[in-house]
């Protein structure tokens, strides 16, 4: 019987290793797998690269992970959001490498990783400082830049409901990066609020089919 549930956060994060790329979902607190990220901060690994829209707020979640000293590099669109005390300090002390990526490009690069696309041309960022060093191409008279896929060794996501196959339903704007990160993680771990019986989710409304999900951990 297929059952993607694991019983602990440790089991959910088994296999994370030094140097891994970790996709952390969420936009603000909505859709953030807070408990998973907090659990990751407790694991003895180093030189992680974290991909997250922001650099965290306050001292928990992504901020706590940064504070734990396990993160070498942050890839995000907007590092300073809410109360970025941890990020600001690490950045000032040059203890954190930072890659700023336009939000749509960040999402599209993860989609490319999940969709088997080797790279794509986009107008976003063309001719700007963020395009420095990137391949350019004129397409239909418009300057484009080449962007590469952004896969994660782990994707940490959050959903409202799941069944044991890993089919996921989100809640309102808490959906945000979760579906695309689910496709881009070599191992995708979903923190879920509720586990429901197989067959109870509406097959027309499943936002992330279980094929993308490897592990489920319930965190009500």
């Amino acid at each position, binding site marked *: 019987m297929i059952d993607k549930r694991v019983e602990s956060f440790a089991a959910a994060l088994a296999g994370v290793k030094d140097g891994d790329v970790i996709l952390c979902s969420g936009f603000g607190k909505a859709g953030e797998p807070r408990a998973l990220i907090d659990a990751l901060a407790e694991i003895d690994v180093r030189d992680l690269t974290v991909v997250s829209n922001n650099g965290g707020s306050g001292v928990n979640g992504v901020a706590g992970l940064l504070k734990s000293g396990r993160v070498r590099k942050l890839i995000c*669109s907007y590092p300073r959001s809410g109360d970025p005390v941890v990020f600001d300090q690490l950045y000032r002390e040059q203890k954190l490498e930072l890659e700023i990526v336009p939000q749509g490009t960040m999402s599209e690069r993860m989609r490319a990783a999940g969709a088997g696309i080797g790279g794509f041309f986009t107008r976003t960022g063309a001719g700007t400082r963020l395009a420095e060093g990137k391949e350019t191409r004129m397409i239909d008279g418009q300057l484009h830049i080449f962007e590469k896929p952004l896969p994660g060794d782990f994707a940490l996501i959050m959903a409202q409901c799941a069944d044991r196959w890993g089919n996921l339903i989100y809640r309102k704007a808490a959906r945000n990066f979760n579906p695309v990160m689910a496709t881009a993680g070599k191992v995708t771990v979903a923190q879920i609020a509720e586990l429901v019986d197989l067959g109870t989710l509406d097959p027309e409304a499943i936002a992330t089919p279980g094929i993308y999900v490897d592990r489920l951990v319930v965190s009500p």
Partner: protein
Amino acid sequence: MKPLTRRQMAWCAARDIVEGWYINLGIGMPTMVSDYIPDGREIIFHSENGILGMGGAPKPGEEDPDLINAGRGLTTLVPGGSFFHHNEAFVMIRGGHVDLSIMGAYEVSAKGDLANWTTDSDTLAPGVGGAMDLAAGAKRVWALMEHNAKDGSPRIRETCSLPLTASGCVTRIYTNMAVLDITPDGVAVREIVEGLDLAGLQKVTEPKLVLASDWKMIVAPEM
């Protein structure tokens, strides 16, 4: 000459939005535009975190932490609204489906280049968010900004001095002094506040201005 207030600037932009447009409003002053859409004009607001049909702020007691806008503020959904994921939200932006993006700006050039993501002015890390996607992708981009910087220097420039967000994307600028169009023939003044003439406006604007043939005086309600 009495410059427009921030609310009056937002009112000016709101007045010019066409029924049926899908619109993304930047954080800050652009957000105010939604307060002044004329009654009965149906406009659909887009948020890059996965919402179409965003409504106003929730009533007390109806706040939902999973229903927030791109600025992390609590919001609501109107009938006909929908939720989708971030990538889909950016397909809408980057694919040219969003009819209008209204963003704040530090500078706009005579060719419509936009600089609004970093001032390089301090030691804090810059953030770009969705600004470059909106600037490059939306069907049209309007800038909403004070006509001059705090030191009085012009923000409408021959070329931008700050790092660009995108080239040639802005088609219209709403300032506290005027409404201007970026045209192949130059920066055209569509509207101007009472008590200011073209010469006066030119003094605080770097590129050469032209007066649109149908230019008019801005008549905005007090607010």
